[in-house]
């Protein structure tokens, strides 16, 4: 896509003629009105609510409209511990959201299980079932951290293109729009992860061995 020359654009702008590209307009629309799903899981949800209140004022980022229905939301903030009993509903809610949709994994629990990781009922990260765009560490993250995540997500959306490899997922016919909802198995959720989304990181062990000198 050929972009308008920036100097010409500003010159035209001074004369009252505003030019833009469809891509810029599309990204601008999506970036500046991210509507999150009104959905709190645990402690982080209180900080999420605090972020929307007057002091931190998430409305500055066009994201204060928390929708209770997933059908009207663009962004899911997974705020809190996802237990194995709750994980199927979280995935189902994500599937019900219309594209384009994004996920912020807020807090240690949503990232990895956090302090409750050793618990038998705690999912070790929501990214095992749904793709996550931004992770915020913290227990709970401060409201500033959530705002930072919003800005990171907005930058990410702004850089997306209508065509090419960096296009949003829903414009790519090969990408899935729905993700398998885990079922309650005999001992654990079935499947324990969605391999299309998440795989255990492979640890490369050097054959030569590490002699402790810092050089492999």
């Amino acid at each position: 896509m050929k972009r308008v020359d920036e100097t010409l654009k500003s010159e035209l702008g001074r004369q009252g003629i505003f030019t833009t590209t469809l891509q810029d307009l599309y990204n601008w629309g999506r970036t500046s009105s991210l509507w999150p799903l009104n959905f709190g899981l645990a402690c982080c949800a209180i900080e999420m609510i605090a972020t929307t209140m007057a002091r931190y004022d998430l409305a500055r980022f066009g994201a204060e409209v928390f929708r209770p229905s997933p059908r009207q939301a663009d962004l899911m903030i997974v705020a809190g511990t996802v237990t194995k009993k709750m994980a199927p509903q979280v995935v189902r809610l994500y599937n019900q959201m219309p594209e384009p949709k994004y996920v912020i994994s807020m807090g240690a629990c949503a990232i990895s299980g956090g302090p409750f990781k050793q618990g038998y009922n705690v999912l070790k990260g929501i990214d095992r079932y749904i793709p996550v765009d931004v992770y915020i560490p913290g227990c709970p993250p401060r409201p500033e951290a959530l705002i930072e995540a919003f800005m990171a997500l907005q930058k990410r959306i702004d850089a997306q293109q209508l065509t090419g490899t960096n296009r949003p997922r829903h414009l790519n016919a090969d990408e899935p729009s729905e993700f398998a909802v885990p079922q309650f198995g005999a001992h654990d959720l079935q499947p324990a992860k969605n391999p299309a989304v998440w795989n255990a990181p492979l640890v490369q062990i050097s054959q030569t061995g590490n002699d402790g000198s810092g050089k492999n």
Partner: protein
Amino acid sequence: MSTAAFPAAVLPTQQIGSEPTSGPSTEQLLELSMGPQHPSTHGVFRMNVVLDGERVVRLKPVFGYLHRNHEKIAESETYLGSMPYTDRLDYICPLTNNWAYALAVEKLAGIQVPERAEYLRVIVGELTRLQNHACLVGFLMQDMGCSGTPLMYAFRQREMVLDLFEALTGARMMCNYMRFGGCRVDLPAGWLDQTKKVLQQFPRFLDEFERLLIGNEILMGRTQGIGVLSKELAVSAGISGPMARASGVDYDIRKVDRYGIYDRFAFRVPLGSHGDVYDRLMIRVLEMRESLGILDQAMRDLPAGPIVDPKTKIRGFRPKPGEAYGRIEAPKGELGFYLISDGSPNPYRYRVRPPSLINLTVLEDLCLGHNVADIVIILGSVDIVLGEVDR
């Protein structure tokens, strides 16, 4: 559908326990699942409601969506290692959770707490109560459809208190402040002056709140006579805290047990007479005023001295075999920790008595016969936090 049109057969008392399809009613009943993702269930709580038109015929709470294995993890941790986990029980008021747990361990191991630490505990505990009740009132208004403004007012006050917590403990929410035999850190310079400034603004907030909302005709119409909890049921179901006091049960553990140094403060225990949602709302507002009085007295009398008992052994803490139950008046009710020690570094049994869960047990009795929209405010007035209900 008007309420007068119901045949006697579908009155709530006769419908309880029967299947919705096989009931004696010829009316069609509707089963509605509210939650776990619902904007007004205060977290991941689910209610299976059977409705006859708009009226609630049966209500079955479903919880466990936030079961984080708190008790089991605590049994594999050292005693002190569980202290940060208690923050995450009732995550709106972490400091009172710390206090209840510290009290139980101190009882178990026979640890004395220095006087200054007791005063600090009272100060942070009452500040916690202030911000919890302010939040509750805001959330309850939000549940009634008064969207935004009251909650913003409440959170404005809460942020001020959280700033104090952050200056003192280093964290806004997960404070991890209490230690066995005292507190972790002493007050930073200027903290008391800042607290006094915050507390001076609080009565103004309460006055404003009362002027705007409490006498509001719509609010009174919405809350009075809704979700009535009788005194007898409150006692027999073990309801505690503001919810029991709204039904007229004179039971405040600060007065009954006089744990810590609560016998040194003059304060009144507000009691309701109707036990409806309005009384539960007003009890919170009145308790905030009493807490302000306690805070004034505690800050006036705060003595100098150590903040932790120097004889307490921190490393290799192994209480003698035995058991102890420590309880405090948390903002939501009686919060107790029951511990059994077998002499090892971690507790043999660790049990939490969560006020939210026990106050929630009467939810069906409160909701029967009311409209769907009333469930939301009844649940809001019970004041639950799912971290504590499911643990």
